[in-house]
């Protein structure tokens, strides 16, 4: 009778799991089973976790920065529903008002600096400025003008982001690769990405906000990478870009944004299909 341990019992024995009972006595007495356990151990002992990279010193602060704005949109835990809703509404309103004010001021600034790139769009918005349009006190920019400005600058932001990601994915992992240019551009894009994401959230454009939210950690990884990356590091970045399908999503949104830019001035910013 063959009473040797089976594969699963060897695994239980290797991990010292209970449940083998008298089979342990057989294992101790049987040369063949002992040899087989040694062979299994020879494989499993070599499976070690490898080195875990240590996050940067400001990891906790960066994590909180990323979480803070998302937590603001969530129901506070363990609040009675009515109070929680009230607090959330107040909190979101306060937060979004501040974000919107910053965004409009910032976008207006960008508009001025890029005025040579957007004269047609601005001109197109002028007839739409009517008594029904809501002026924004801080800048004098109306809601409709803001829509158009947002389309222009977000469209440019998406174009620039896509370009950086495509360049990165086209690099060949071969020895040390210099990504200084991609890194610097990712760092610049990161700051504006956060602002656009907040603005998109403010305006209830969840899909745009989601896309920009997905883009942020990708840009973050590139911005924080060393200037010279190893093939493994480059492959890791490329894999991440490809795994998220982010370039494809950016192209889809860019096409939608371009269509919106061609649409009549009064048209509200459409939800892009991601």
């Amino acid at each position, binding site marked *: 009778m063959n009473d040797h341990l089976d*594969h699963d019992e060897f695994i239980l024995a290797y991990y010292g*799991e209970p449940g083998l009972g008298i089979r342990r006595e057989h294992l101790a007495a049987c040369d063949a089973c002992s040899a087989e356990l040694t062979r299994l151990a020879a494989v*499993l002992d070599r499976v070690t976790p490898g080195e*875990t*990279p240590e996050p940067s010193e400001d990891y906790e602060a960066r994590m909180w920065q990323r*979480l803070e704005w998302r*937590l603001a949109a969530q129901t506070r835990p363990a609040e009675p529903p009515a109070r929680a809703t009230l607090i959330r509404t107040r909190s979101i309103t306060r937060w979004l008002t501040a974000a919107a004010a910053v965004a409009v001021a910032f976008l207006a600034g960008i508009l001025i600096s890029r005025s040579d790139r957007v004269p047609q769009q601005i001109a197109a918005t002028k007839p739409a400025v009517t008594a029904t349009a809501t002026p924004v006190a801080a800048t004098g920019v109306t809601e409709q003008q803001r829509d158009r400005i947002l389309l222009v600058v977000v469209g440019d932001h998406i174009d620039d982001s896509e370009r950086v990601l495509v360049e990165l994915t086209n690099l060949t992992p071969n020895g040390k690769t210099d990504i200084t240019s991609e890194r610097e551009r990712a760092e610049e894009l990161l700051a504006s990405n956060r602002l656009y994401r907040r603005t998109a959230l403010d305006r209830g454009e969840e899909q745009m906000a989601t896309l920009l939210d997905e883009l942020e950690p990708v840009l973050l*990884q590139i911005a924080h990478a060393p200037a010279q990356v190893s093939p493994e590091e480059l492959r890791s970045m490329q894999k991440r870009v490809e795994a998220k399908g982010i370039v494809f999503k950016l192209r889809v949104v860019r096409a939608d944004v371009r269509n919106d830019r061609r649409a009549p001035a009064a048209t509200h910013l459409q939800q892009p299909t991601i």
Partner: protein
Amino acid sequence: MQPSDNELVEQVRGGDDDAFRLLVERHSRPLFRSAYRITGNAADADDVVQETFLRSYRSLASYDSRATFATWLHRIAINCSLDLIDARRRREGRIDAGEDLTLLPSSAATPDRVVLSSEMQHAIAAAMDALTGKERTAFVLRHFEGMPLEEIGEILGTRLNATKNTVFRAVRKLRHQLQPFTGSLT
């Protein structure tokens, strides 16, 4: 004196988001390490940590102090890691959990490649990557973290026998993939 995790949880429940910031600062790093061991990727581990805190914030009302806050967070992180691996595999159109990879030719690096690269860790990473999300997670928890099978089952929501079988499958697949590189094996 620093407030305990449970004291901070109470403060968060009372509306103090700053207390949650302290919990984030206290637990981000260990969660990152744990998530990295399961996902094998720093960027993914980063995403897991963020998602873990979002999920924990949403369900803080259900935290009942039976387990420590760190353990509770760790469990959420494990499930986030598993979700991320599964989602990634779906996107990549990888073989699903039903297929037995031990019946397929090894997709890990060949012995020649390993000799050339002199990096056994690459072969291990490739072999780990061939596991399903659940197999990988169960194996990491048992093999790297020494977690009892019962606890792994609780986290993964599987019975003890199913948990054992998941670990058995993971070990069989790893052995199949790595056997060519261990000289003492037949």
